């Protein structure tokens, strides 16, 4: 019997009735898609893929949505093939894309109800053919897609990951070509108005583009940041979870749970709820404030989240030069201790770390990067920088509050 209400899905994408709290953001995405391409930015576990699935499951404005997960793609021909495969699922494209010369023989496999293995054999052949001239083949596909009446939205999930994989597999030049080609597609006058692209990824695209020396490659994408829930939404989310899983929390416990999490990142609400649920049903423990605090300390700040935040610390070393790394760590440590720090104070710390070469411009750049990468946020009312998440701050304070860099 299907569960009523929201099911607590951890790790997988949430769809349908389980998709909660992001409706406004989805509205925003649709608004923005009308005018341009979108880069969806958020750390891992924020719900990007769920948002993408919402676009796929409920298209608007009479548009077609084509989704390709590029996580395991390592070459341009594969990407184009994957896109073709997705396009072929929609019969609307039969008379356009389906009529392309190089697709004539294999198109039937996509459309007719052949056994998948036969389809796969055709795909392998097709991929080899696309490889010979992927730029032109790909362009032809997009041109044909644009012939239909509706606008078409391409969702390319894990796009940065694909580029990163190509970089790591000695395919840097190919990755650069792909980026330039992709840009030319987007800027082509005949395609501009009909095609839209949404790219998203679990790793930041900026670093990958930097490594590829192609920073301007996607400067036509509008960046939309997926934020944590609002307090109101978080409240409602937790209530829904309780209702659908037959868990009763008193008002005090409910409030305490959200207070412990702090910034309402849905993933952490799910984690803590999952543990409460286990304690209640499996261990038959009464759900008290003490239990919830214990779960927060041992589980949420324990194994589940430790590596999540360790990544934040470690990547400072990967992303920045040693002196800036030191500056960033010093600033973050001080913000963790002080809870909030003014820009001026942060600059003083920056100056101390960098020395006489400290430049206000570079300092601003660093602070912007830290904001973009979700370490900190700027509270314009209080005029201070704070940690982006209470959990991250708790963790930082616990592990690096006393470090001398």
């Amino acid at each position: 019997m299907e569960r009523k209400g929201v099911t607590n899905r951890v790790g997988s994408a949430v769809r349908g009735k389980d998709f909660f709290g992001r409706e406004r953001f989805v509205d925003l995405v649709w608004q923005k898609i009308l005018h341009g391409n979108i880069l969806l930015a958020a750390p891992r576990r924020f719900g990007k893929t769920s948002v993408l699935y919402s676009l796929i499951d409920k298209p608007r404005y009479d548009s077609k949505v084509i989704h390709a997960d590029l996580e395991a793609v390592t070459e341009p021909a594969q990407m184009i093939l994957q896109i073709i495969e997705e396009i072929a699922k929609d019969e609307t494209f039969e008379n356009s894309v389906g009529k392309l010369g190089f697709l004539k023989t294999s198109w039937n496999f996509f459309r007719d109800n052949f056994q998948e293995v036969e389809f796969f054999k055709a795909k392998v052949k097709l991929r080899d053919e696309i490889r010979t001239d992927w730029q032109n083949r790909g362009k032809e596909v997009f041109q044909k897609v644009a012939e239909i009446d509706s606008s078409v939205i391409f969702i390319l999930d894990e796009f940065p990951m694909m580029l990163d994989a190509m970089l790591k597999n000695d395919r840097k030049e190919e990755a650069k070509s792909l980026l330039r080609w992709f840009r030319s597609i987007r800027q082509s006058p005949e395609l501009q108005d009909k095609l839209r692209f949404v790219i998203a990824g679990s790793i930041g695209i900026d670093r990958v583009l930097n490594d590829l020396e192609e920073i301007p490659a996607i400067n036509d994408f509008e960046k939309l940041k997926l934020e944590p829930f609002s307090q109101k939404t978080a409240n409602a989310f937790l209530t829904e979870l309780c209702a659908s899983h037959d868990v009763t929390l008193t008002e005090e416990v409910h409030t305490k749970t959200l207070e412990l999490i702090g910034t309402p990142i849905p993933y952490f609400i799910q984690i803590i709820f999952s543990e409460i649920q286990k304690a209640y049903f499996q261990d038959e423990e009464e759900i008290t404030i003490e239990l919830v605090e214990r779960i927060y300390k041992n589980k949420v700040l324990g194994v589940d989240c430790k590596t999540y935040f360790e990544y934040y610390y470690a990547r400072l070393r990967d992303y920045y030069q040693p002196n800036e790394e030191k500056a960033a760590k010093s600033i973050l440590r001080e913000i963790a201790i002080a809870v909030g720090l003014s820009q001026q104070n942060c600059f003083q710390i920056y100056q101390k770390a960098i020395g006489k070469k400290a430049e206000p411009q570079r300092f601003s750049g660093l602070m912007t990067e830290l904001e973009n990468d979700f370490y900190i946020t700027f509270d314009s009312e209080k005029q201070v920088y704070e940690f982006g998440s209470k959990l991250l701050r708790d963790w930082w304070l616990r592990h690096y509050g006393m470090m001398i860099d």
Partner: protein
Amino acid sequence: MNDNLYNPDSMSKEEIKALFVARQPLLNEFVSTIRNQQTGAGTQHLLIIAPRGMGKTTMLLMLQFAIEDNADLSKNWQAVRFPEESYDITELADFWLKVLDYLDDESLKPKIEEIEKRFPNSEDLREAAWTLVKDWSKKNKKRILLLIDNFDMILEQIGNDIEQARLRDILMNYGTVMFIGCAPSYFHQIQDYQQPLYNFFKIFNLNDLKFPDIEDLIRRRAEIDDIPNIEELLQKNRTRIKALETFTGGNPRLVLMLYRIIIRSDMTEVRTGLERLLDAVTPFYKDKTEKLPPQQRKIINEIAQYSLEKNEGISPTEIAQRMRTTPNQVSSQLKRLSENGYVRALNIRGRSSFYVISEPLYAIWAQMRFGRNAREKRNWLVKFLKIIYDEQEIQKEIEKLDGRVKKLKIDGRESKAQGVLEYMICLMETHPSLMEKNFSLAVESYLELGEISCLKEVVKPNNFTTLSKETIQKLLEKKLINKEYYKEGYNEKYVKALDYLIENRKNKNIEFLKKAVELFEEITPYALDDAEFFITKATTYDNLDESQKALEAINQSIEIDKTSSWAWSIRGRQLAKLGQKKEALASINHSLELEPDFDVALEERIPLLKDLEDYIKVVEDCNQLIEIHPNSHFAWHEKASALDKLHYHTEALECINQAIIFNPQCFRAWKFKAIRLLRRAVTRVENNNLRDARNDVFEAMESLKSAKENWTEFLFEFYIYLAKYVDKQRAKDLIYLTKLSDEFFLLIYAIDYLETKDETILEKLSPEVRIVVEETIKTLQMIEEGKTKSEPNKKDRARKKSKSLALSE
């Protein structure tokens, strides 16, 4: 009776179901998750994490049965279960091929053959195999429930990030499969943020069984085994079963392994059964342990020993004391061990955590493996016997075994007899009264077997009262004991001496040490083959700085036991103190051959290598010591010193900074740092980089203050040096830059005079000041005019001394 007590794969379905206790709510939750899966993308995948023996495989089997037995579920789902060992899966292609294989559908065979032939390329084969899986699912209108044991091992074998990304893609975007995996602990692929499967699964742990569940499990097992009067047996053995909860840590597999022993009270089988069990797990635990760095292995050992002795967890502070290291260091290692599932914190009391080994069987194995002697190695067995059997039962068993030994001896089966005799000793060790009562039996038997070496371990002075005259005579003839040995008082004197040593540790009073050695001398003739006694004696003499006597004592220890790295290290230390450096080094080298990571020996060796000016080796030793003790001030300091000698000045500075972090109270380190900085400042001044030189001077000044040195004297000599050997003007500029013109105005005057030869500079000085300035001028002039040194006055002598301190080691 079924022998597959701990291998669910070999058990029948009915048995597995019958033995499924305590986990029903969890099973229900899993089944509910399966039922409520949405179609298409967004399937919820699960992971069960629990140590070996907690019931992961059983849970997977129960899930498989749940699908098979339920028409609703079996209509929509096909369960595919992977066995515990899947060593042949090294690529994702292998994985999907296995799935196809386990679907057990004849119609798939030709298709599998075809794709294997057609797609030799691994990537294509992977995709082709996956499409076959999708085909099968579509054709049979069923989704596939993958039940994967040891999933972490499979991912490790696959290794490739792209393949794991592809797996994630499939699990995320296709509803064809639902995945329920198992692993003994959290693993890298789900914990590392950068990994595709990071936090991808909903995770469940399996809790320890509590007493009611253990009782239930045993009841069910006994029912299957047709054991009569089971309730009566359970009642009778209630205490033992309760003890099982402690001993097994609520681990179902262990409970089942030991239940027969408990119920049948078959003590004879206990040892064999347990040892067989430990043999079976040795390859696995050996591999698990060998993956650890040395420090962590030692920590595992300490926890294993302690928890089995005291039946409770041990704090990081206690571990640190036992290991002669710092609590901080232990804590950081414990954190890692905890994350990797080796240990867990029992409870939080105030600020301390108390740690135990996560898997009770691993704890037993660790103790058996790492026990320092035979006695320690069988501690776990003694403890088990003590928990499970009462004194009377054990006494009966001892008498039975004694008879057996005699019979085996008569039959000429001496080695078997020895094995039984060893077990007898174990039983005797469970209770002091049993030892007292049966000691003579054991001694007699050993004497008859001629097993002198084993006897040495057993014969202790406090057992002697029970021996007959004839037995004592035999022991004397075999020179196992000294005539006086069994006199009363040996033990008391030893204990008293140890008490004096403890007092000395508390109160640092040398009189206690003297009293201790007096007692040691008295009991030395009785010490027989007690290598440890002689070590204690040697270290006490060492603390009294009586190196010759310490050396004699340690030589005696080594004569008894040549394999003690500790003893060889002490020997080296004494030889070094006696000036026999070469022999000292040889001794310490031998200690390190016996135990390459012996930190104390490394610490002893470093000064000797320094004397030999083998600085490269010093650096190597320091690096090794740092690996063991990352916070070792000594190692960092010595490394800094050696690197400096090797002219790696920048690295030396980095090292001394580290040393200071770990011991900010070490004045020598601060001074070393100051000197390095001043030397660097000299080079910078030579390169006309006064700004950076200034920073060096500031830092040096602070360092000298921290070193409680007279910084003005140091810096004065530094500036003199600059003026004399580098450039006077720059020296003067630097004085101004460092804002020290008030302190060193005399030098400024001297420099000004030398630059301008303007007599008025001197004329306007007061007579006392003028004298000093003129002396300074002479000093500076000496290098210019190539004159020999002027007759030093007191002040000059003092300054020269400071100079030599400032600019040399």
